[in-house]
């Protein structure tokens, strides 16, 4: 049970609640028993399908019933026209939409949706129109779900799945635009930042981007993330994204520029442990850079060590980590 406040009931109130629930329990158990016994005798009729809807209305987490429902549909489909199959699938998608709005984190409902989409027949006629229409409609639903909860990882996973399954692939730059909208609505939406790391990597791989092209694209990203960092330097999301942009082997000028920028931010926000944390890490990266001479590297490691020692004080929950990191600086 997540996030439901505990209430103390008086014994009388508890008894009233129990009695009120009794009839609900009774009708739930009756429908459950009916559906499970139909399942046992392999009743794949329309009537059985209707009974599964009634049970799922009461308990959309009952995955065995979703399985049974699919088994019924699969047994009905061979005798149905493609139009009738499509209309069954439309009504199942409607059903799952209504459940998802109430239970946005139930795996089994999302799974049934995938099955529906994957079961759409070709048509009408020789065309692919049904499949295209079905898949396109999905993005609208996901956007609605992500408006309700911008961090729902089920919805983000499903979005990735839908985008990779669209009969007509959408340009990846569209997804870049979408994540930008989500990020600009709330810099704290790490799910959107994460998605951006994946989309950009995919775009660069697809285009066979040269290091110069990647650098240019990253410079624009640095501008975006710098806005986020200055807006709230206490938010982890932007810092994580910044770390991804810098990567393992950044160009020297990029690394130096970013260190300077964070030093500026640190001057404006001396209390921010994230500035110190980033500076410590990037200083170590600079020490390890092939163009850095041994004396300079030693000085930089000393500087990183000093920063980790500051972190030990300003970030006491993670004191041991900072101490371990400081010990690696010699």
């Amino acid at each position, binding site marked *: *049970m*997540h*996030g*439901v*406040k*505990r209430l*103390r009931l008086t014994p009388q109130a508890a008894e009233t609640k*129990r009695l009120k*629930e009794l009839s*609900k*329990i009774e009708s*739930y*158990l009756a429908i*459950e028993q009916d559906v*499970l016994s139909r*399942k*046992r005798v392999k009743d794949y009729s329309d009537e059985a399908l209707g009974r599964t809807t009634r049970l799922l209305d*009461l*308990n959309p*987490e*009952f*995955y*065995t019933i979703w*399985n049974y429902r*699919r088994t019924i549909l699969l047994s009905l489909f061979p005798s149905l026209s493609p139009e009738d199959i499509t209309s069954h699938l439309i009504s199942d998608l409607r059903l799952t939409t209504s459940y998802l709005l109430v239970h946005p984190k139930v*795996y089994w409902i999302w*799974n049934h949706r*995938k*099955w529906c989409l994957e079961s759409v027949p070709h048509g009408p006629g020789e065309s692919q129109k049904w499949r295209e229409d079905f898949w396109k409609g999905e993005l609208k639903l996901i956007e609605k779900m992500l408006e309700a909860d911008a*961090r729902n*990882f089920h919805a*983000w*996973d499903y979005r*990735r799945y839908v985008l990779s399954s669209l009969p007509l692939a959408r340009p990846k730059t569209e997804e870049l635009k979408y994540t930008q909208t989500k990020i600009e609505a709330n810099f*704290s939406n*790490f*799910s959107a930042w*994460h*998605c951006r*790391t*994946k989309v950009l990597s995919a775009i660069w791989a697809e285009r066979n981007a040269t290091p110069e092209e990647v650098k240019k694209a990253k410079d624009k990203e640095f501008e975006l993330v710098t806005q986020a960092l200055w807006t709230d330097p206490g*938010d*982890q*999301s932007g810092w*994580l994204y910044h*770390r*991804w942009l810098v*990567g393992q082997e950044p160009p020297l000028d990029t690394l130096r520029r970013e260190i300077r920028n964070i030093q500026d931010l640190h001057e404006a926000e001396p209390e921010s442990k994230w500035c110190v944390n980033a500076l410590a890490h990037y200083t170590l990266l600079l020490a390890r850079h092939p163009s850095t001479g041994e004396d300079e590297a030693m000085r930089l490691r000393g500087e990183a060590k000093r920063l980790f020692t500051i972190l030990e004080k300003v970030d*006491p*929950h*993670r*004191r*041991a*980590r900072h101490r*371990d*990191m400081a010990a690696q600086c010699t």
Partner: protein
Amino acid sequence: MASSSSVVPKLNIPLHVKYIQNLDKKQDLAYHLTSHLRLNGIYWGLTALCIMGQHSALDREGVIEYTISCWDEEAGTFGPHPGHDGHILATLSAIQIMVIEDALDRVDIERVTKFLHSLINPDGAVSGDQWGESDTRFSYILLQSLALLGKLDTLSPETRENITQNIKGCMNFDGGFGTTPGAESHSGQVWVCTAALSILDREDLIDKDLLGAWLSERQLPNGGLNGRPEKLEDVCYSWWCAASLSIIGRLHWIDRDKLIAFILGAQDLEDGGIADRPGDWVDVFHTVFGVAGLSLLGYPGLQDIDPVYCMPAGLIASLGLRKPYITLPRLSSYPPPS
């Protein structure tokens, strides 16, 4: 926070034992609506009892009989409740229960092994059942199930490698892991992936400093841990994060006393059980992961828990399945002497 930490309650073991023993007695609507989690619930309750040193508080024969009654003959494995379909989630719980109760001889090990093998996809992803949904949770469950059944060697080197590469493909730049390739890092998935790689003896694939830093940043000022950046704390993440940190040898990177105080504050001290956070309704899921977290952190008077399997550590060691990990030394008293 500083003033309340001086009045942190202790772990009320007798009350939590009673809470677990009574789980079956309160047959309200919620109880019936969660029958698809019944067998998992027994594993959670039984494991919590083992950690609290009260293994025999549940009737052994009753537990075994019930587990056997969950067998799905058609699927050739266990479902979560009689009449429910077999699934990998219920399968692991059944195996864990039978191993804890030393009753594995009453399980058709060959059929369960066959079921598990049928879930491995050519790309190394693992499905939950015949309907195909795959998730790194299932990769871990498959590996732990095979390990407990003594059947890990039935995986060919190629299959092992495919499963490993699939998990590696779910790793992100922040060192964490997601549900599937491309998905955002999430502490729950981090735990299943680090534990799976540990069972595969492939912890070398994990960047321990990077992942350890990410995990340690899950701790919030109130001491609790969250599952992803900028989300709320929750007792179950005490387990997902702390067990992962333990597997990668970085458990000392979070504030032990603050986390202990947070978990203890989420107890229901009237009716027993632990909630997701202080003041919420309790359930057996948060109860086990709360006490398991406390055990890893060295809370006094608790039995050791194995962070790779979430099973009693002594039992795992006796089966020869122990992997490397570091827990915190067991305290002799709580609050710890300052």
